[in-house]
């Protein structure tokens, strides 16, 4: 397997995912890379960000010194609240999640299987188990997107036939944004719906472990 420097940077991945979020959506962005999407929402598109620790209408990080240690996001970083925001307790926050009121969440992944299984909470072994809200999000939010590098740093595919790490949810992932492609989870496996400029379908397929087909003839839903 080649490790030639093809594909998008992290910023570019975030910008690519941001393009597909509809105006007026209620969106939860997972801790880490998915959080970056917020910075790239296109002009004129308004997205209401939910953070599961009790805020709708989350804004960007505060200017240095302007933050409040009690206004944080799920990653425990200081944020701001935009006009039209609301605070609520955890039961109400997860009622939004479990009750199917959020339109979209974008999460990181250790592995995504060709049937949509997601593993993103535990590497197994003797690490301290910690799940947070990941299992709630994947079981409740209307659409679950994953944003991840296509392979690990060691070149091992993260889009796989079936997950080896403990599952976060079964058959939950709808779409995957990687540095190489936009991949949907179809009934027969992975479906490439968009390729990063300069990347070929064969290069993506070579870096993917499960059944994958070129579905670019199909209109990409945006």
């Amino acid at each position: 397997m080649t490790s030639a420097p093809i594909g998008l940077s992290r910023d570019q991945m975030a910008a690519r995912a941001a393009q597909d979020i509809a105006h007026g959506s209620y969106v939860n962005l997972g801790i880490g890379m998915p959080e970056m999407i917020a910075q790239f929402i296109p002009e004129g598109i308004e997205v209401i960000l939910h953070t599961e620790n009790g805020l709708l209408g989350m804004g960007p990080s505060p200017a240095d010194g302007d933050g409040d240690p009690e206004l944080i996001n799920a990653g425990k970083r200081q944020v701001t609240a935009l006009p039209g925001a609301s605070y609520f307790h955890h039961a109400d926050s997860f009622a939004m999640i479990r009750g199917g009121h959020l339109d979209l969440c974008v999460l990181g992944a250790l592995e995504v299987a060709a049937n949509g299984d997601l593993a993103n909470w535990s590497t197994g072994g003797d690490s301290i188990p910690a799940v947070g809200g990941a299992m709630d999000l994947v079981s409740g939010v209307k659409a679950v997107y994953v944003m991840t590098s296509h392979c690990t740093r060691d070149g091992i595919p993260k889009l796989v036939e079936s997950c080896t790490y403990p599952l976060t949810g079964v058959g939950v992932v709808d779409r995957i944004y990687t540095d190489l492609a936009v991949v949907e989870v179809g009934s027969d496996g992975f479906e490439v719906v968009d390729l990063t400029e300069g990347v070929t379908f064969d290069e993506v397929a070579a870096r993917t472990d499960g059944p994958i087909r070129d579905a670019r003839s199909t209109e990409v839903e945006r």
Partner: protein
Amino acid sequence: MIDKRVADPAAALHDVADGATVMIGGFGEAGSPIELIHALIDHGASGLTVVNNNTGSGEVGLAALIRAGRVARMICSYPRSANSTVFPELYRSERIELELVPQGTLAERIRAGGAGIPGFYTPTAVGTDLAEGREHREFDGRNHVLEYALTADLALVKARRADPHGNLVYNMTARNFSPLMAMAAATTVVQASEVAANGGIDPEAVVTPGIFVDRVVHIASPAHESDLVRRGITYP
């Protein structure tokens, strides 16, 4: 800008289908969205299942909707009122069905519907006629009944103030079932006495976050049911 305001009740209810399940906020007249209910009568949808704590009073609002023959089935806790014979007459002549639910169980079933909880256990009604034929289960030696979530196609809600995102605050005991129904319905339509600019509601004091609201209609001076009844008004 995100703006959930629509021009009037008719526009807010244009897509209600026959046979829909409609949750209507209010406890007695407090929180009853009369102008929306009247627009629903005008719209003409029929065969409705309506969820409300009561069955209305006089011949306005919910009682008028029932009297117009639009409601096939009521889910409520207390279908009696001192000044309305609309529901009793239809019920006695078997022209309307009733699912009677203890008030707290009704509230919790609606909340469960909004929160993605399909079922829960409650001690309420164990040993009574209302628990007959239901699934029971002991927890810590005490018997409970299994209750199921309630959801709806539409919720009609009255708020004191809304903003363009659909954030809501209510007026005193007019709050009652409305925040729960807003969560449990596929489409939530709100009539608000005031519509604030975006940011015009303190984020700490929001009762219903806008995520639960789809359409907001400004009704500056909503009628009070008791006032209409006193004046002998009937709708339409």
